[in-house]
């Protein structure tokens, strides 16, 4: 589903972040990416989403070379939500559809409107549809950002530290939403986080990034993530301890 082959990338002003880096995620996989600040976690997501271009190597999603023709098919959810302050919750959720309409790719037809209504309802923000982002809480904003991404029916969901600015309860609530969506939709997800517990909870496989330049992917398998009530299971704590040790090395 996601495939990086010999990818090299560096920012204009700095040394290489990735150097001949190869990695792949299968369809329906749930990945978490963890590593210290500045290791290239966000850069990896931006490369997959096509916002950054690699200097060398190739990236493909669903067999299609990145940047994809329909970039919206690779959903990206950001830490600070990226909502438009001048659009209502409904306006924000519709944004991807409006952009497609603007480019003549599709119409805001009945099916599209129904999808908007469905995701507003599914994420519990139906009652907030006429509110502006400044009028709702951080958790509600992130729900709107998730709805906005899912409305355009992506086949990959990339999340960049999506819950790091939320309080513990809201964070837990939204983590459960992501787990439910993974189970319901079987969508390929890649969640970037600096939180060990979150990585263990949301990733059936965990990609550990060290200091750049990153050449080899370090992967930690986390099969217990499929367990029900994994958050409270002893396996969860064991996996956290193991991952913590791995990061400390």
């Amino acid at each position: 589903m996601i495939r990086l082959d010999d990818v090299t990338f560096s920012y204009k002003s700095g040394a290489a972040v990735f150097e001949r880096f190869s990695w792949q995620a299968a369809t329906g996989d749930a990945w978490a990416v963890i590593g210290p600040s500045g290791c290239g976690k966000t850069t990896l997501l931006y490369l997959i989403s096509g916002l950054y271009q690699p200097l060398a190597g190739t990236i493909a999603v669903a067999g299609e070379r990145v940047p994809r023709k329909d970039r919206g098919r690779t959903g990206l959810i950001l830490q600070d939500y990226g909502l438009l302050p001048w659009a209502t919750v409904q306006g924000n959720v519709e944004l991807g559809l409006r952009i497609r309409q603007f480019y003549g790719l599709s119409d805001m037809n009945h099916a599209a409107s129904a999808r908007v209504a469905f995701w507003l309802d599914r994420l519990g923000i139906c009652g907030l549809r006429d509110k502006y982002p400044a009028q709702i809480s951080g958790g509600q904003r992130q729900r709107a950002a998730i709805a906005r991404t899912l409305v355009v029916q992506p086949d990959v969901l990339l999340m960049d530290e999506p819950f790091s600015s939320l309080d513990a309860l809201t964070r837990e609530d939204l983590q459960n939403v992501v787990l439910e969506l993974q189970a319901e939709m079987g969508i390929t997800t890649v969640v970037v986080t600096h939180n060990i517990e979150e990585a263990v909870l949301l990733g059936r496989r965990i990609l550990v990034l060290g200091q750049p330049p990153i050449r080899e992917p370090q992967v930690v398998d986390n099969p217990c993530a499929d367990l029900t009530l994994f958050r409270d299971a002893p396996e969860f704590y064991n996996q956290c301890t193991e991952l913590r040790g791995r990061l400390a090395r």
Partner: protein
Amino acid sequence: MKGRQVLLTVVVLLVLWEVVARLWGVSVLPPASKVLLVFFAELPGPLGRHLLASTGRTLVSIALAVTLATPLGLALGQSESLSRLLSPLIYIVYPIPKIVFLPIVLLFLGIGDVSKIFLITLILWFQVLVVVRDEASAIRPEMIHSVRSLGGGRRALFLFVYLPACLPAVLTAIRVSIGTAIAVLFFAESFATTSGLGYYIIVDTWGRLDYAAMYAGVVAMSLLGVVLFFTVDGLERRLCPWK
């Protein structure tokens, strides 16, 4: 500000004016009641014609300034290299009071509408340019990334991000510049022309020592500023409800 508050303030000002004028009793300060009578009598005639001329010049200037400054401001805000190239020029020219260019503008563009519109456009253009540039460069990259990730290219970014992001600042720039623009218009209309409130106040009525009509002209010019100010204020509330 609410409509009732505005109305009350206007009434208080008129009453104060009436009282001071009647107590003082000099011809150079006619009472408000007399001025208002002249104002309404002259409005369908010469005063209305001059008011229309000034209003037209101001509206055309605003439209031109916004149309010409917004694209360049957006380009400057998005392109660091373009900003580096042009910012020194803007930095030097921005603080110069544009009214000093009046004689030069008159020499090059003549004494008709064009010179007056050009001068007011120039004043507003700088204000709008600077705020649009600042707003466009202050847009958080995350917002741009999220729109691009939904498939938005340059044109979609312009329509869905840059334009609405800059709209409140553009309206604020126009609102705060209206006073200056009308002051410059008044000055520019006060010589070498036969239309506009500047002409009506300075050349026509003041020259004839017709003080009541002169004050009616002042009221008309004040009204022009106040109505434009409130119109932009209303537009901001209507177009930028998230503010």
